[in-house]
């Protein structure tokens, strides 16, 4: 599974696409965020962090797998 990164999450992680190693089990949005917060503590300091699955805002319990497009959505600031 790969995670698309935008805005400040791209700066914190230092790249725009983060592969999740095959030996890491992240089956839900909550599990993904827990793993990310361990790896990149800067992500936990954001005012909010959403996850999009297949280009739609996902719930904490939404299931993840490698067939889905997954992205981190830091606080938006368009307009």
């Amino acid at each position: 599974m790969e995670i698309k990164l935008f805005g400040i999450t791209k700066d914190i992680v230092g790249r725009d696409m983060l592969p999740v190693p095959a030996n890491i089990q992240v089956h839900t949005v909550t599990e993904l965020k827990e793993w990310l917060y361990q790896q990149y503590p800067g992500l936990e300091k954001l005012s909010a962090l959403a996850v999009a699955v297949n280009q739609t805002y996902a719930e904490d319990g939404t299931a993840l797998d490698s067939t889905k497009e997954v992205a981190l959505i830091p606080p938006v600031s368009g307009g």
Partner: protein
Amino acid sequence: MIKLVTTIDINEAYSALQHPEAGGISLFIGTVRNHASGKSGVTQLDFEGYEPMALKEMEALAETARVKWPIKKLVMIHTLGTKKVGEPVVIIGTSTAHRKDAFDSCKFLIDELKKSVPIWKKEYFDDQTVWVNSHP
């Protein structure tokens, strides 16, 4: 007309809002200010988007607005890339038979766009850059 562009064309937006049964058109144009909240001296801005999702969210907001108000035509255009102070970054427009519906639906669309559409603004100051809204 819903799209992401590099430069906003106000005439194109106005043309797309014309409709023989529309008596009122409300347009909102968001521009780059030279001072953000509490800070001064913004020299430029960059806008980055998660483009396919941003378009899906904009389409969803448009659909919600069309259910709430009798909208004849609707425009949501956001720019991506580098902008200077004073340049337009977003244009929202609705045309309706009666003007209150145009104002209300246009305001709804820009308010909601700012809440949910995955577009990010980076402000450049003389000595630093800031991703707006990122931190508490």
